[in-house]
């Protein structure tokens, strides 16, 4: 019951916050903060007292929804989903906190949209029915569209349209692929179902499977984004309000990565292996390309957006290496990138609130007047360039070590991306925090609320960098199951939670 509870609570909280805005705006903010915090606590409780199960699945919930089509409301949770939920609710709470002062008009509607985006994302991370997955995939778009268009910056209409049309069009391709899978499987077995676990054992003709996989890949590649499909991202990120950018970078991009891991790899094993060299090459190209473009931006939020493009290249590289190390690296990358890039967007938002520009050429010398902000900036710039001791290093290191086993050339080029990351990260620091300050501006350092947000983020990125093991332990069974599904006979390892799991021990590849 706790799984649908997460989603329902967010939705109810959104409606409640909207209603409360008639009475008091403070109440609205508190309601949405408490809703997300409550969800975070719930996820934390699940994490700390992990239910004993023999399979990689921890919790499962299923009721029929549209039985005529074999559609059920099927949610399930494994280690991967759990980590993603923790991230979602963590960043969700932060996004309410940072909107406290920034959003002053239409507060009720704002929090409604915010909580419904989170509800959609939660649904995406939990849905184990392909129709339901698509449903949530689309549900998270509309509130996000409103967040960008109503509370965004000067060019928000263009950005919101681009975001919506890109993601919606690619989503429709995925819908066609889902239906293709549904009918191919149904015609073969006579059971027409959208259930993930039953479709896993579908026996697809390879040429059809290739097309179906491309349909899925289209949706995830746009969301991730993979380089030729990334053009919506800089616009959407730079035009969204701070919390919008945080959710886009921290969570929405992760749904693409999650989709790759959860659907593309296990469902289309052979085809994914067949395109792996290309996918990895595109990923590596994205790493370098994103880094170069990030270096040449003058808009601070746009710059951070391009660093996301670069970091997401590592995810493509890791996912298509098909080994446990790289995949664990991908999971870590999803979490650490969510926190570090999110933090950079928050910093950009704080600066924007003070000087009302995102133009780097008009910044400089902020360290002197805002030492606290400067320190945080330093930490997250270092995280972004992959300094050991901070979370991103663990993620990128694991990914690169794993990818090395798959391809040497590409891994070497990808490592160059770290050098490029150093260059653009140091440029942020140099342009924004050092140098001479424009004399006219009077700047106030962070307030208590802002400091609290930053301290929490700094602590978590340090924790992820110094003690990544709890995260890795949580995701390991799920990652292992995904890899085994793409490695051996898939039916053996990736079973629904109700059935006992056949454990296959693998030689090597263990890093514990």
């Amino acid at each position: 019951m706790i799984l649908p509870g997460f989603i329902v609570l967010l939705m109810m909280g959104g409606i409640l916050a909207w209603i409360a805005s008639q009475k008091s705006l403070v109440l609205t903010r508190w309601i949405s903060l408490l809703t997300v915090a409550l969800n975070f606590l719930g996820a934390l409780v699940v994490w700390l007292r992990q239910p004993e199960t023999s399979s990689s699945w921890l919790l499962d919930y299923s009721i029929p929804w549209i039985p005529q089509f074999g559609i059920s409301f099927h949610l399930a949770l494994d280690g991967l989903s759990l980590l993603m939920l923790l991230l979602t609710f963590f960043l969700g709470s932060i996004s309410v906190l940072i909107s406290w002062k920034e959003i002053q008009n239409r507060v009720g509607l704002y929090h409604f949209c915010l909580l419904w985006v989170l509800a959609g994302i939660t649904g995406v991370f939990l849905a184990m029915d392909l129709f339901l997955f698509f449903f949530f995939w689309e549900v998270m778009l509309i509130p996000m569209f409103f967040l960008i268009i109503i509370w965004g910056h000067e060019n928000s209409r263009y950005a919101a349209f681009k975001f919506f049309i890109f993601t919606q069009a690619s989503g429709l391709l995925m819908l066609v692929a889902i239906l293709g899978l549904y009918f191919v499987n149904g015609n073969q077995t006579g059971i027409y179902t959208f259930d993930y676990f039953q479709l896993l054992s579908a026996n697809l003709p390879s040429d059809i499977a290739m097309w179906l996989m491309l349909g899925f890949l289209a949706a995830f590649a746009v969301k991730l984004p993979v380089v030729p499909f990334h053009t919506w991202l800089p616009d959407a990120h730079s035009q969204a309000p701070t919390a919008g950018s945080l959710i886009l970078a921290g969570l929405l991009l992760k749904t693409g990565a999650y989709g790759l891991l959860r659907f593309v790899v296990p469902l289309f094993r052979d085809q994914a292996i067949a395109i792996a060299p290309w996918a990895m090459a595109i990923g590596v190209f994205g790493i370098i390309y994103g880094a170069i473009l990030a270096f040449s931006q003058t808009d601070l939020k746009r710059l951070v957006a391009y660093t996301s493009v670069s970091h997401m290249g590592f995810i493509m590289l890791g996912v298509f290496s098909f080994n446990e190390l790289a995949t664990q690296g991908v999971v870590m990358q999803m979490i650490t990138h969510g926190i570090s890039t999110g933090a950079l967007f928050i910093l950009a938002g704080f600066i924007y609130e003070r000087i009302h520009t995102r133009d780097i050429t008009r910044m400089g010398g902020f360290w002197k007047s805002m030492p606290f902000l400067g320190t945080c900036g330093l930490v997250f710039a270092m995280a972004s360039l992959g300094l050991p001791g901070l979370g991103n290093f663990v993620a990128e290191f694991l990914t690169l070590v794993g990818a090395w086993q798959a391809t040497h050339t590409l891994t070497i080029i990808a490592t160059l991306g770290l050098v490029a990351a150093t260059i653009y990260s140091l440029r942020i620091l140099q342009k924004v925090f050092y140098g001479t300050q424009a004399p006219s501006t009077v700047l106030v350092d962070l307030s208590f609320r802002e400091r609290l947000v930053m301290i929490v983020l700094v602590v978590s990125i340090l924790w992820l960098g110094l003690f990544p093991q709890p995260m890795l332990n949580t995701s390991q069974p799920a990652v292992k199951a995904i890899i085994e599904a793409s490695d051996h006979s898939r039916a053996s390892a990736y079973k629904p939670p109700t059935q006992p799991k056949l454990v296959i021990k693998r030689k090597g590849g263990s890093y514990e």
Partner: protein
Amino acid sequence: MSKQDLVSIVPLFILTSAAILILFSIAVKRNHKVIYGITTFSLLADIIFLAIAEGPVTWTVEPLFVFDGFGKFNFGLILVTALALTMLSYAYFEQREERKEEYYILLILATLGAGTLTISKHFIPLFLGLEILSVSLYSMIAYLRTRERSDEGGIKYLIIAAFSSAFMLFGMALIYYTTGSMEFEAIGQYLSSLPELPIIMIAGFGFVVVGIGFKLGIVPFHMWTADVYEGAPLPVTSFIATVSKGGVVTLLVRFYTQVNGYQYDSLVVTFTVLVIASMFVGNFLALRQQNVKRLLAYSSIAHLGYILVAFIAGGPLGIEAVSFYLVAYFITTVGSFGILTYLSDKDRDAELLDDFRGLFWRRPWTATSFSAMLLSLAGIPLTAGFVGKFYIVAAGVNGNIWLLVIMLVVNSAIGLFYYIRIIAIMCEKQAVETSSTLKPSVYLISGFSVAALTVALLWVGVFPEGLIALIRSLLNP
């Protein structure tokens, strides 16, 4: 004529007698409320009769009518839509100075015509139904004759409808000449005994398709749509978009399946070309519109294209998808035109994009409903339009018509742009009030109808299993 025959055609009788009753009632005294009451009551009575009448699942009244699940479902759908439109019409016409009462006679007659189309299995009731529908529509479109664009719309429709009827008649004549029958099934039987389609039959089918195409407003027979939509009073516009087109779609499906159209490549290719053209032309022309009525007109061309994708896919799933999509499309179209009606004042209709600027902040509930309608047209989850589109794509994938499915996906993406553009405009800052700002008077009944349609939209979007079960039970008894 047996007793069951008589019972079967009672729905047609109720409508006919309602029209006559209104006529007499006007002769005694003009009273908008009374006429409105009679219309509502007779439509309700008809719906209830259709829903509870017992009898065999399929009953044919030889040689003209067939009362099967598909026909009954669409007949019912048309009646419910007509009822919703009556609800919306009251407030609209109450605000206007013209004589209002005759409108309801025309509305009922047009409904009768469309209803006849859904149950006919013979060229004669087909043509009769079509003409009753068209003739009523001529005068309905030009009903507010003092307004500048309404007679333009009326005459345009008159000429084009007459033209298309002539085409259709000629086509029927050719088919009758070849097969010696006007009954759909007999035509099908005759054709299946031939090795291939004779040239004269192809010509005959071609002319019938031209006639039907005009009525549906698919490309390249769409030229009248935007002008007529723009010129007609809002309730009439939504009548044309829903009831009139729905009746013709039902007829097309029945005719096509009974003559086994799916086995003739030339027909399938023709329809495929028409459908692709409709989707692209409709969506592209809608992109730059500044007038919401015209925008919805072009979007309806595209939507007819979507419906016909499921129709081309064929099979039980295809027919189900057509029925389901019709429901979703009807709710959405009546709803969105209903909102335009709700926002119109007595001088002009709410149709310019500027009328909607900042609507979210002036009338949040109306704007939310309208957004839901537009998102449904765009096919976004939580709305009926999404399930409908899902159904169509499912039918398409199942029927292996990949080209059309991909075209549908491409067009949905194009279509998104102009729907969310309206939503974006509603979110913008409020415009300064000028003399042209609409000042609609509020009628409870319109507000209630729009709210009910919005609820229906969301209900079907989230819990479609009830509607699916109903359609399945009627279609595959």
